[in-house]
């Protein structure tokens, strides 16, 4: 019975009159210019959800039979640290490029597609570093020997309180410094991504034991990681519930109040949940002293990896000092 006048259909007993019947068609028609745009917060929540899905996806990479996947997580963690320190200490762009090549080769040997790896590494952090460092290659921002003069004013130009100098140029120091920063960031991120992609989170946590991280921190880390997903789901639910209730665009004031209420609700629910989790832990014998089972054995190849990483780190630093 489409398009009936609701007032003419008696609603079933017990329901108020306005609740019965179908709605007049006009209410459903789109109102031009009133289409609601998703708020930035909504978009971010969706972005996070997507990012987390790729990290779930990454556990798939961790279960592939590749070079790094087969290694003991402790060997990987120690190797990562050694190479990170080397990457932080060297000062020649060429050496950094060499380290970058090593990480990319390791990614290949671990059956990570190059395209995926490059995207995962470069998107956001090194690209962002590049954008940030860009102004510093000009002599206007940071002094240096001009390499390429873009504009010669012939006289000093002032912009209010600022002096722009007599020319705009790209400097040698600026360009080298920018290259070093971006490469260093890229190598560091590649190393971290490589470890995260080829190691299951639960194994990675156990590897932290060798780095003298106390057990209780490891337990907290593992629980945090697990509850991030739950809280995200809760947050996403709140947004969906709100979206489904809203008709027109919301005012910034409403948005603020909603955001605060959701953060408050999230905090309240988190607290209640932590009580439940605590009860569940106590029920299974937890008394504040976390224990863990050792399920790993360092084998020949694991020692080899750690040694190779140490050698690569030492070689990088040595070559750097030799060149510089």
């Amino acid at each position, binding site marked *: 019975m489409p398009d009936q006048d609701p007032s003419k259909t008696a609603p079933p007993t017990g329901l108020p009159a306005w609740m019965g019947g179908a709605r007049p068609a006009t209410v459903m028609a789109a109102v031009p210019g009133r289409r609601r745009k998703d708020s930035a917060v909504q978009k971010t929540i969706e972005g996070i959800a997507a990012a987390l899905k790729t990290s779930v996806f990454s556990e798939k990479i961790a279960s592939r039979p590749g070079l790094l996947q087969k290694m003991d997580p402790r060997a990987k963690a120690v190797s990562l640290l050694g190479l990170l320190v080397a990457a932080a200490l060297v000062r020649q762009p060429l050496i950094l490029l060499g380290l970058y090549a090593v990480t990319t080769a390791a990614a290949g040997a671990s059956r990570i597609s190059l395209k995926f790896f490059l995207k995962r590494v470069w998107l956001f952090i090194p690209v962002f570093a590049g954008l940030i460092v860009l102004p510093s290659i000009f002599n206007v921002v940071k002094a240096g020997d001009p390499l390429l003069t873009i504009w010669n004013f012939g006289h000093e130009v002032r912009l209010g309180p600022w002096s722009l100098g007599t020319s705009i140029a790209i400097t040698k120091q600026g360009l080298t410094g920018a290259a070093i920063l971006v490469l260093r960031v890229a190598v560091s991120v590649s190393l971290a991504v490589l470890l995260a992609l080829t190691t299951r989170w639960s194994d990675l*946590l156990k590897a932290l034991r060798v780095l003298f991280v106390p057990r209780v921190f490891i337990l907290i880390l593992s629980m945090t990681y697990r509850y991030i997903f739950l809280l995200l789901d809760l947050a996403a639910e709140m947004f969906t519930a709100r979206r489904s209730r809203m008709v027109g665009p919301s005012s910034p004031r409403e948005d603020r109040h909603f955001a605060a209420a959701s953060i408050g609700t999230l905090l309240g629910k988190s607290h209640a949940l932590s009580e439940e989790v605590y009860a569940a832990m106590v029920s299974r*014998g937890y008394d504040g002293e*976390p224990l863990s089972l050792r399920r790993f054995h360092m084998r020949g190849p694991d020692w080899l990896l750690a040694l190779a990483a140490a050698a690569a780190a030492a070689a990088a630093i040595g070559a750097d000092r030799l060149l510089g």
Partner: protein
Amino acid sequence: MTANAFEVKSVSYHYEDAAGLDGVSLTVAAGEKVALLGANGSGKSTMLKILDGLILPNEGTVAAFGEKLTEETLNDEGFSKAFRRRVGFVFQNPEAQLFSSSVWEEIAFGPLHLGLEHDEIITRVEDTMHILGINHLKDRPPYHLSGGEKKKVALASVLAINPEVLLLDEPSAGLDPKTEDFLIHLISDLNRAGKTVITATQDLGIVPQIASRAIVLGEDHRLSGAGPAGEVLGDEELLRLANLVHYHAHEHDGLRHYHPHSHVEEHDHH
């Protein structure tokens, strides 16, 4: 003479703003299978938490295997480890129960923290996964499981402890019929193997399989009835007062006609 698993004497428990239980007494014999029935908020979960020594009653006493559960006894490491080995609790909300980073870790958590040997833990985890048919999930993180899988892992995490008493809070909530059937059969098998099983539920449909005796908590947080499961299920007046069934009104040719209707598919989620 059969020893009693639990003896609860006129127990009351108050939450900050509401009553949880009001003067409830009950006894559960070792090896019994008992259903704890009641509507949302009647105090079923509170009772299970009291039985598991997770909260202590404001008034009254509770004893497990002849020993009183008090602040003092539960803080005694020897007693508390022994008690936790003998009593296992499957929470209603698997999100709260599954806090580890993988299914394997989750199942190993109990045996590990209750002081079992390394090799024994590994055997138990593998065997428990096998019984529940969840071997393929062993490296999965818990957030990546379906509702039924979560429930199975939660049960596995308790079964690996091999407790004498199983406390189950709404085990059938939110399950598909096949998983529900599987779990209910497992529960009665466990009981036949000698385990005491206490199930809190408002799903009357599963009661005949999971319980030989039923205890009903009313909406006034008091005990409103107890007896053999068949008798309790037949006592419509009792069930209606406890808000476990209600009368549906239907109109046929202008004539009103009532019949009782149980909340078979409704479950609380808190």
